[in-house]
């Protein structure tokens, strides 16, 4: 039986139409720099970082927001840069792994990953580190995770508010991060090398307050 279709399209799909690129000017604030570019509107932030700005630290693992290797900070919030159109970034500040620190001036999170061996092939690592930095900020602001509120919570009245530790009060809204919290919050970053155990240890170390290393390899 004969079939015919476009490269990816099923039988007799619509004409592609005019594929002439449509471009737009953008000004991207990336790390310490400002970049004025003309970009194809289809370009994602990830592709502009990698192909136009030679900031190849952010990685393309799946290009569909399913692995987290492309994680960068946008106004300090962790996002998948493969799903952000470059034209839509507008005035927001982009921080990539390169902006967190360099080989001779490592950010504490980078140093923790290095010393705790929280990586193997290294491809998911920039995304892990950016995600971890963003995540610590979220926890410090008191943002809960799926494991923070474990019990059926009430709607107020005489039952009181749904219980979660560490929240409330004007002092420190931060959520205490144990390994289960860290693991849940970091589950948007896949690691096929399976470095999760050490990734959590590295983040735990930074969350505790850049204290002493965990003691090295545990037999």
């Amino acid at each position, binding site marked *: 039986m004969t079939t015919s279709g476009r490269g990816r399209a*099923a039988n007799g*799909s619509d004409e592609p139409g005019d594929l*002439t690129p449509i471009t737009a000017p953008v000004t991207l604030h990336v790390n310490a720099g400002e970049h004025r570019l003309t970009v194809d*509107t289809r370009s994602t932030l990830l592709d502009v970082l990698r192909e136009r700005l030679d900031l190849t630290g952010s990685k393309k693992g799946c290009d569909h927001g399913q692995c987290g290797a492309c994680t960068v900070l*946008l106004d300090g919030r962790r996002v*998948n840069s493969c799903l952000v159109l470059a034209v839509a970034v507008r005035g927001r500040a982009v921080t990539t792994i390169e902006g967190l620190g360099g080989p001779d001036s490592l950010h504490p999170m980078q140093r923790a990953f290095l010393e705790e061996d929280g990586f193997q092939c290294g491809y998911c690592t920039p995304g892990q580190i950016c995600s971890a930095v963003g995540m610590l900020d979220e926890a410090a602001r008191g943002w809960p995770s799926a494991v923070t509120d474990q*019990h059926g*919570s*009430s*709607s107020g009245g005489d039952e009181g508010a749904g219980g979660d530790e560490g929240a409330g009060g004007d002092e420190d809204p931060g959520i205490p991060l144990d390994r289960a919290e860290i693991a849940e919050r970091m589950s948007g970053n896949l690691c096929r090398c399976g470095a999760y155990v050490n990734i959590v240890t590295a983040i735990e170390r930074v969350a505790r307050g850049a204290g002493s290393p965990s003691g090295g390899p545990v037999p």
Partner: protein
Amino acid sequence: MRPFDYRLAEDTGSAGVPTDGTILAGGTNLVDLMKLGVLQPATLVDITSLPLDFVQEEPGGGLRIGATVRNSELAAHPAVRERFPVLSQALLAGASGQLRNLATTGGNLLQRTRCPYFQDVTKPCNKRRPGTGCPARDGDHRNLAVLGASPQCIATHPSDMAVALRALDARVQARTPNGQVDLGLDELLMLPGDHPEAETTLPAGSLITSVTVPALPPGCRSVYRKVRDRASYAFALVSVAAVVALDADGCIGQVRLAFGGVAPRPWRASAAERRLIGAPASAEAFRAAVRTELAAAEPLPRNAFKVSMLNELVVTVLAELTGTGAGGA
């Protein structure tokens, strides 16, 4: 992806409705589908500059949530955590931290199914291309619907947030070319029937502006529970948003149940609710009510498990919320 024009929507008051173009908010679903070739808009209208990122108090204790509020902000909002914990839990059960930071209220409601055939433009799909068929019925349907489906389509709605909103009787406000509308979720989201390509009742050129969530009566306990294949970052096999309040005599005074992962839109278990209102809280009562609701299920060979899994999950959750014995086997 085909080339497209990008423009930023400017707020021109209630008359300003983007009549051309596809709405871009967080982009987590739209950009994904554009890369897959499923959606090929000629114009994107970015609405993230519109003043729709508010969470406001409503008289009576409810909330009005702007359409572009990010999922992560909403889940962490003190009023949401305190008054509607089921909504916070549902949001946190979905996607990943990164995706929640981009995804918006409106986008989450309108997100498309993750059916593998819908997402693959090299395969037939009645929803994506009407009349081409539904290969899911005889194919990979483990994650697809057991309720509310039709011979044309067995897609499920992937959202967790929407399930919680359904249980909370949330309403959606939108500007359409024909004026403002205020819709319940079952009035917004459609079942496939003979036209699976039509997913919402909103005409082209509409813009969701907000979602209102009325206050729950005092004394309600609520929870969102999700069963999935891995401990995090996966869509639901089945899920439930449950809200319950007991009367002074231990009978069920309030109950709301909505199911996720099993239908083309969040499934409000109205039949179960009717049986439960006024009944003494007991495992038997829960079991009978849920069985009634799920009697309408039309399971397929590879997703039939969802019926009993959901049944057991709901019974267990209701038992926990009412402090009624240890539910489950």
